[in-house]
C-alpha cells in the first residue's frame, strides 16, 4: 500500500474536503471549529516534514487500540511505551517492536526524542500525568474523562491556558462524521427548536476484567472503585453529555439524580445504575441514564426538536410530520376494487400515528459506521482514529484544536457533579468557580 493511500481517518478528511471547509464552508466552521487544525490542505503541508514522535502511557486495552490506529497514521511514529503492569507492556511491545519501554512515566517524559504522549491510564492518573507532561514540554493526548475530580479538571484547564503545547482529550464524537453532519442539520433547523435531550447507555455485562491474582483486583478493575474511577458517568456519560452541550451551545446550570448498585453486588463501589437530569437555564433538560444489567435500550443520544428527533449515536433522524395515513393507499385500493370515493388526503400536514411508524432517515448518505456501545475498549471508525490523527498532526504543527479541551472540561465536570448529586441526593447548581469562558449557561 502506498503511503498516501494509508490513514485511518481518510473518511473524515474526505468529508471535510467535500464540505469545502477551506473554500467557504462556513457552516462546518461554525459546527466543528476544531476541524480547522486538521484539514487535508494542512496535512499536505506537513507531508515532507518529520513525523510526530509519540509515546503511549498506559498499555491496556484502550492503549493497544490506539497503538493499532497509530500504525495506520502516516505522520505518526510510535517511539515509546510505558506501563507499570508488565503483561500489558509486553503485549503492546509486540505490536510495535522498536519502541522503547518505561515503567515510570516521569522517566519517559525526560526523553527528548518524544514530541507527544498518549495517556490511556486509569482515570485518577489523567490529571497528574497530563500536568507533568505539559510541564515537561510534551504535547498531550489524554483519554476521556478529563480528570477524577473537578479540582483536577480546573487545574488541567488552567495549565492548558498557559501552555503553548497542544492538548487533546479523546472526545471522539467531535471527529465522527455522522455527529458533525447531524449537528449541521440541527443548526440548519431540520428538527426545529431543540426542546430536550434523552441519552442513555445500556449494557448487560459486569464491567469486569479477569484478574490473574487477587492483589491485582483494584489495579485491573479500577473502573469499579471510586479512588480511581467516576463510574458510568465518567466512563460513558462524558461522551453523551458532551454532545448535548455541542447541540445546544449551552452548559446546564442545575444537576440532580439518583443511582445505586442494583445488580452487580460484587464489592464494587461505583453505581451500576445511574439516572441524572441536567437542566439548562432556559428550562431544557437532558435526561441521562445508564444501566449495565439490561441492554434492551442500547446506546442512544436523542436530540428532541419541535419538528423532529435526531439520534446522534445511530446517525438517523425522524420527523414529526412523517407519521401519516396514506390517502394514496386508500386510492389504490379504490382503483383495484372499482370504488369511486373521496380520500382524506388534503391538509396542511400529516397525521401522527405510532412511534413505530416514524421513518428513519440517514444523517449521512451512503455507508457510515454505527457503534453499538457494547465494547469496553472502543469501536472502529468512531472518530477515535480521526482525533488521534489530528493530535499527531498538531504535534508537528503546534496548532491547538479549538474547543476540544473546553468540551472535555465541561462534560467531565458535569459528570462528576452528577455523581455528587446522586451520592448526596441533592440538586446541585453549577459552581461559579468552575465556570470557564466557553459557551453560556
Amino acid at each position: 500500500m502506498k503511503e498516501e493511500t494509508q490513514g485511518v481517518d481518510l473518511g473524515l478528511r474526505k468529508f471535510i474536503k467535500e464540505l469545502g471547509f477551506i473554500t467557504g464552508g462556513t457552516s462546518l466552521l461554525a459546527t466543528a471549529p476544531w476541524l480547522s487544525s486538521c484539514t487535508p490542505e494542512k496535512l499536505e503541508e506537513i507531508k515532507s516534514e518529520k513525523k510526530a514522535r509519540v509515546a503511549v502511557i498506559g498499555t491496556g486495552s484502550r492503549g493497544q487500540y490506539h497503538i493499532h490506529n497509530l500504525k495506520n497514521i502516516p505522520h505518526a511514529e510510535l517511539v515509546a511505551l510505558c506501563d507499570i503492569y508488565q503483561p500489558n507492556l509486553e503485549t503492546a511491545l509486540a505490536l510495535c517492536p522498536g519502541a522503547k519501554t518505561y515503567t515510570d512515566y516521569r522517566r519517559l517524559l525526560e526523553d527528548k526524542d518524544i514530541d507527544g504522549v498518549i495517556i490511556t491510564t486509569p482515570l485518577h492518573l489523567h490529571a497528574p500525568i497530563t500536568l507533568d507532561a505539559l510541564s515537561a514540554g510534551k504535547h498531550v493526548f489524554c483519554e476521556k474523562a478529563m480528570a477524577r475530580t473537578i479540582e483536577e479538571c480546573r487545574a488541567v484547564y488552567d495549565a492548558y491556558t498557559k501552555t503553548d503545547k497542544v492538548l487533546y482529550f479523546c472526545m471522539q464524537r467531535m471527529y465522527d462524521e455522522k455527529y458533525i453532519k447531524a449537528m449541521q442539520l440541527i443548526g440548519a433547523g431540520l428538527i426545529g427548536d431543540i426542546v430536550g435531550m434523552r441519552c442513555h447507555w445500556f449494557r448487560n455485562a459486569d464491567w469486569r476484567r479477569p484478574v490473574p491474582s487477587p492483589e491485582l483486583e483494584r489495579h485491573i478493575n479500577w473502573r469499579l472503585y471510586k479512588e480511581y474511577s467516576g463510574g458510568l458517568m465518567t466512563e460513558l456519560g462524558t461522551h453523551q453529555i458532551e454532545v448535548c452541550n455541542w447541540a445546544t451551545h449551552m452548559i446546564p446550570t442545575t444537576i440532580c439524580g439518583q443511582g445505586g448498585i442494583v445488580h452487580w453486588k460484587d464489592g464494587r463501589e461505583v453505581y451500576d445504575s445511574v439516572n441524572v437530569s441536567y437542566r439548562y437555564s432556559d428550562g431544557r433538560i437532558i435526561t441521562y441514564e445508564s444501566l449495565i444489567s439490561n441492554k434492551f435500550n442500547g446506546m442512544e443520544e436523542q436530540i428532541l426538536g419541535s419538528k423532529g428527533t435526531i439520534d446522534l449515536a445511530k446517525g438517523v433522524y425522524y420527523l414529526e410530520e412523517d407519521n401519516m395515513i396514506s390517502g394514496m393507499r386508500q386510492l389504490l385500493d379504490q382503483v383495484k376494487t372499482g370504488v369511486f370515493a373521496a380520500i382524506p388526503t388534503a391538509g396542511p400536514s400529516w397525521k401522527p400515528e405510532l412511534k413505530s411508524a416514524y421513518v428513519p432517515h440517514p444523517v449521512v448518505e451512503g455507508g457510515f459506521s454505527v457503534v453499538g456501545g457494547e465494547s469496553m475498549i472502543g469501536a472502529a471508525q468512531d472518530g477515535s482514529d480521526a482525533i488521534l490523527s489530528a493530535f499527531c498532526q498538531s504535534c508537528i504543527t503546534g496548532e491547538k484544536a479549538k474547543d476540544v479541551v473546553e468540551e472535555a472540561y465541561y462534560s467531565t465536570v458535569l459528570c462528576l457533579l452528577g455523581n455528587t448529586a446522586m451520592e448526596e441526593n441533592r440538586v446541585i447548581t453549577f459552581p461559579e468557580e468552575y465556570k470557564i469562558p466557553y459557551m453560556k449557561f
Partner: protein
Amino acid sequence: MQTETEYIREQRLFHGMVPRVMGTKLELMTVGTEEDVARNTWNEICADAERLDSMLNRFSPESEISKINAMHGCDRLKISSELLDILRLSIDYWYRTEGLFDITRGRMTELSLTDEGLLTISSPELTLDFGGIAKGYLQARTEAKLRRSGAECAFVDFGNSAILAIGHHPFGDSWRVSLPNPYNGAILDEFQIRDRALSTSGNTPGYTGHIVHPLTGKANVERKIVSVTDRSALDAEVLSTALMIADEGQRLRIGRSFPAAQIKTYHL
C-alpha cells in the same frame, strides 16, 4: 433516491412513492398508461425532484441556495438559469400577493436582479427560502411531464398539502379529495377536482407557526386552513401560503389577481 413502485397490469395502474424529498413524501398514481411509459415518466419526475431538492434545499450545505445564503450577501452573482427562473417567478408572486409571499422574509427590497440575471443581495441578513414555492414548481413540471407522456388519469400527492389531479378517477368523472380537520379529524370539506391542483396551508396541533408574516415577522398561529384549487399548481401553492396571513382587504384584492383560483378559508 429511495423510491418504491408497483404496476398492476390488469388495471394498467402505476404507483410510485418517494418517502422523502423536499422535506415530504411524493406519490404518483397513473391509470391507463403502459408500464414502460409510466415507469419512464416516474423516473424523470424523481430525477427532477432530486435535482430541485439539491438546488433548493436550505438544510443541505451543498445546495445552491445554502451556498448563496452562506455568503451573507452578494454582488452581481451569476446563478444557475433555473434558479434565476424560480427567483423571477418568486419576485412576480411577491408583487401579485402584495408582499405576502416572500422568499426573503421581508427583505425583498434588499434583493435585485440585473437584466442579465445577475443577483445582488445587499443585506447580510437576507436569506433565501424557496420552501413556499418549491413544491408548486415541481408539481408544475410534473404535470408537464405527465401530459407529455400522454397520461389521461393521474393523481399526484405531494405531502397532502399539494395535490394535482389530471383527468379523472377511472370509476368517476373527477378525483374526490376530502379535507379533514387536523384538530379533530372531522371532514371539513370535499373537493371534486379535474385537471386542477389543490394546495392547502394551515396550522395543525403538532405543527403551528410555520408561516411567518414577512412584514411583521410574526408567526401565524391561528387555527385556520386555506385551500386553493387552480389550474396552475404554482399559483395554488403560492396563494394558499400567502392567504394564510392576508387580512380581509388583501384577500379580496389578491383573489382578484388570480381569477382562476377558487379559495376557501376554514376557521377551526
